[in-house]
Structures are given as structure tokens and as C-alpha cells.
């Protein structure tokens, strides 16, 4: 199997305070073609930052990065913007953790969902794009795709916005989908639909997925492999079943023990 993402010795350091802060240290992570990798861990441990780095979106100059991130032949850490943009929104798409602020408040949903298509598939006509947009909106269980298509972000509920983010990321068929807590604001029925959808696109298009989540049950049903992060390092990683059934690291054990139980 082909390796699609290779992260080696990634370190991320912040420089915007008097003291430099290292938030990710020597992180290694590989994702192969068609694989779904879960990334779980403590809140604030650096999951989102790792994901952003992999997507080539850490460009602030007060952040110091080192290591290697190789996505399908592109160096995501240091490549020029022109090169990155060939990848972003085309071979790679991102579902952001915060759907509220990650949508442009002044643009209609439809426009935002269609944006990657507009950039990377200029051959599509406007109506084709719209059809595709409505299609993905429906796929993420938005019941009135027309209304959503014509709404502004502030007119949608939290869950709807999150689904819009998902739809936008899936409007094209990326090789790698980075999903940063994509289902937190969704009710369980929709959550399950989304999980099915993700499995589906993996199956039909061979898309690899980096799935960041706190919901270990979702991770266990969706992912092939999982990595557990704490304090900027991956403390444990491996096959989902193995990790969940035989956690080795203290933190992993604690994590699994904290899953709320319902005794009916």
C-alpha cells in the first residue's frame, strides 16, 4: 500500500509570548492510502495543530516548525504557497473543529461549499456545481438543502454548520481528508450517517482519513489505526482493536476507563 502522508519528527513551537512554548514534540505519523487513522488524546495536546500542519496551514511567522511532512510528494511544511494550493482543496481537504468561525460570515453556504470545485474544477458549469453542492448537503443529512444552500452561516444551527463544513470538504474527492472533531455537534443518528458516509467515500474513492475525535466509540467503529496523544507527543499508536482492548500506556488506559457507561 502506498503511503500518502508521512510525518516525521514534527515539532511546533509558539513564539508569541515572552517564553517560547513547544506544543508538539518529535511527532511521527504515517497514513496509507485508503486508511482511516484516528487521533485521540487530551484536550490541548496538539491534535489540531498537527492536523493543520499536515494540511499546510500553519503559516504564521510566530510559529516555529521543524520536521518533515510529506503528503503525496508535497512538502507541506515548507513548500511555496503556489505548490500547496495545488494540493489543498483538491487532493486534501479539511473539516475544521470550529464550524462557527471557520465559515465566512458574509458568504452564502452554497458559495462556500462550491468554492473548492470552482478553484480546482474550472470545467464544471455553475449548475453542475450547484447540483453537486446540493447533493453533498443532502448526503450530510441536511433535510432542506435548498434553504441551507441559500442561507448565511449565522442562520444555521451549530450542527448544521458542522455538516456544512463536512459537505464542503467532501464536495471534491480528496485523497486525504483531515476531519478535526467533525461530529461533536451532531445528534447520534446523524453521527452514524456521517460515519457511514466516511466509510463510503473511503470505499468508493480510496480516500484516506485522519479522524480526530474524543468519541472513542466512533473511533473504534470507524478507524483502522489509532494514535493517542498527550502533551504534544504520541504516547501510543497501533491497530484500533489492539489499543482499545489492550492499552499499554497509562493515559490510554485512563481514557478508556472514562468512557461513560449506561447500564440499562
Amino acid at each position, binding site marked *: 500500500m502506498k503511503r500518502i502522508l508521512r510525518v516525521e519528527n514534527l515539532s511546533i513551537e509558539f*513564539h508569541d509570548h515572552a517564553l517560547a512554548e513547544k506544543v508538539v514534540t518529535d511527532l511521527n505519523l504515517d497514513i496509507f492510502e485508503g486508511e482511516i487513522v484516528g487521533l485521540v488524546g487530551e484536550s490541548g495536546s496538539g491534535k489540531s495543530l498537527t492536523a493543520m500542519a499536515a494540511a499546510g496551514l500553519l503559516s504564521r511567522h510566530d510559529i516555529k516548525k521543524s520536521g518533515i511532512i510529506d503528503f503525496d510528494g508535497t512538502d507541506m511544511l515548507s513548500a511555496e504557497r503556489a505548490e500547496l494550493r495545488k494540493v489543498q482543496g483538491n487532493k486534501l481537504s479539511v473539516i475544521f473543529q470550529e464550524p462557527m468561525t471557520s465559515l465566512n460570515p458574509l458568504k452564502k453556504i452554497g458559495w462556500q461549499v462550491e468554492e473548492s470545485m470552482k478553484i480546482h474544477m474550472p470545467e464544471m458549469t455553475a449548475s453542475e456545481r450547484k447540483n453537486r453542492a446540493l447533493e453533498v448537503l443532502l448526503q450530510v443529512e441536511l433535510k432542506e438543502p435548498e434553504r441551507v444552500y441559500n442561507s448565511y452561516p449565522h442562520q444555521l444551527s451549530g450542527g448544521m454548520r458542522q455538516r456544512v463544513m463536512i459537505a464542503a470538504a467532501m464536495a471534491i474527492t480528496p485523497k486525504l481528508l483531515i476531519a478535526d472533531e467533525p461530529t461533536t455537534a451532531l445528534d447520534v443518528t446523524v453521527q452514524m450517517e456521517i460515519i457511514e458516509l466516511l466509510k463510503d467515500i473511503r470505499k468508493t474513492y480510496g480516500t484516506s482519513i485522519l479522524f480526530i475525535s474524543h468519541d472513542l466509540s466512533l473511533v473504534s467503529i470507524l478507524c483502522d489505526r489509532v494514535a493517542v496523544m498527550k502533551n504534544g507527543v504520541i504516547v501510543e499508536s497501533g491497530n484500533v482493536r489492539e489499543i482499545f482492548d489492550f492499552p499499554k500506556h497509562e493515559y490510554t488506559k485512563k481514557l478508556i476507563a472514562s468512557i461513560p457507561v449506561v447500564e440499562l
Partner: protein
Amino acid sequence: MKKTEKHNYNLILGIVLTAIVLIPAVIGIFYTPYDTESMNLALKMASPSFSHPMGCDNYGRDIFSRIMKGSSITFLIGVGTVFWGSLIGTLVGAFTAYYGGVVDEILMRVNDVIFSFPSLLLALVFVAILGPGTYQVLFALAIAFIPSYARVVRGEFLRQKSMDYVQLARLAGAKDLRIMFVHILPNIRKVLISSILIGFNNAVLAEAGLSFLGIGVSPPKASLGSMLSDAQTYLFSKPELALFPGLTIIIMVLGISLISKEVA
């Protein structure tokens, strides 16, 4: 680290520039190298020399001494006008945006009225009621400046008002005034500060413009603005007469804007 240093660098530059203008101005209140009013035929239009570093004007008065004295008046008018104008303008803008409805309508109409009223006529009315003088200019200008601040603040407030953090503040028991001025205002400070700087410039220059009405500083006293406009007569033959007061204004404004940008 690097970034913090750069910040200080701008701030220091701003402080230095402001000091270059303000220290002589403060000293000028108590002491000037030469009397600023007594005339000397022998020195009429004298070129810069060691004893008169900026030369002398058409009455043989030392320009450096006059700039020392004039700066403080200019500073007073600039700061005073902007202070009152932006204070009242911000209040008006904040209240209209925050409460909306009738208050908004009425205050914005009043605003339109002030804005349509020629400042010249306004200044004349002030002279008629209060007599000529520095403070009269200050108030006439401040009133003329209110609408622009009110408009800018209103626009920004409208945008902020709909955000969740405002609602959260309300739940945290903050009173309306506190919400407006402690919570919202800091978020529009950047825009407000750039309009305050604009206003400072305008005030300094408008004061010069009003001197031909005989309000403001009356000769032989001088402000930087009035020195500049007097110098226009000699623009071709003695451009340095305009140069020094002009430079002083520019340095003053530049210094203040650097400081306020860094502080904000």
C-alpha cells in the same frame, strides 16, 4: 522573541518622535531662547544660523522659539478636539447601535444635521456666543467632528452586537454600559484609533484654516497651523518658513500614531 523586540522598536520610535516635539513645547511654556513676540528689523527673514537654527520670520522673530510656543497650542487643540469629538461621537455611535429604534433614528438625524452644517458657520456661531479664543475653536471643531466618529463607531458596534460574547456578558450580569464600553469597545479599538489619528490631523489643520476667521490663536501668538498658513505667502521665496512648522506637525502626528498603534 524577535517579535516583541520589534514592537518595542516602533513604540520607542513613537515616543522619541513625540518627545522631540513635546519636550521643547513643554519647555516653551516657561522658557524660549528668544522672546516670541518682539520684532527685530535686522533679522527680518534671516536664514537659519547658529543663533537662529530655523531662521526668522518676516518680523525677525525666532522661528524655533515660536515653534516651541506654538506646538503646545497645537497639541492642546488637536488632543482636545479629538478627545471631545471622539468621546461624544463614540457615545452617540455606541448608544444608537446598541439600542437601535427611536434613539438611533433621532441621534443619527441629529448627526446628519451637524454634518450638513458648514463648520465655518458653526465656528462663527461659536465666536458670536463665546467670543474668539482657543477653547472656542476647540469646541467648534469638536462638535464638527462628532458625526464622523459616531458613524464609524455605530457601524462597528452593529457588527459586534450580534456576537455571542455580548450575550454571554449580559448573562454574566454586566450592565448595558459595561457591555458597551468594557466588552465591545476594545474589540473596535483598532478602527477607532485609526479614526482618532485621522481626527488629530484634521483638527490641527482645521485650526489653521479657522484662523482666517479670526478665531483661534490671535496674532502675534502662533500655532503650528497658523505659522504654516502664514508661511504660504512666502512659499516661493522662503520655503523654509513653511518647512519647519510643517515638519513639526508631521513629526508630532507620526509620533502619536506610532505610540497609539502599539498601545492598542
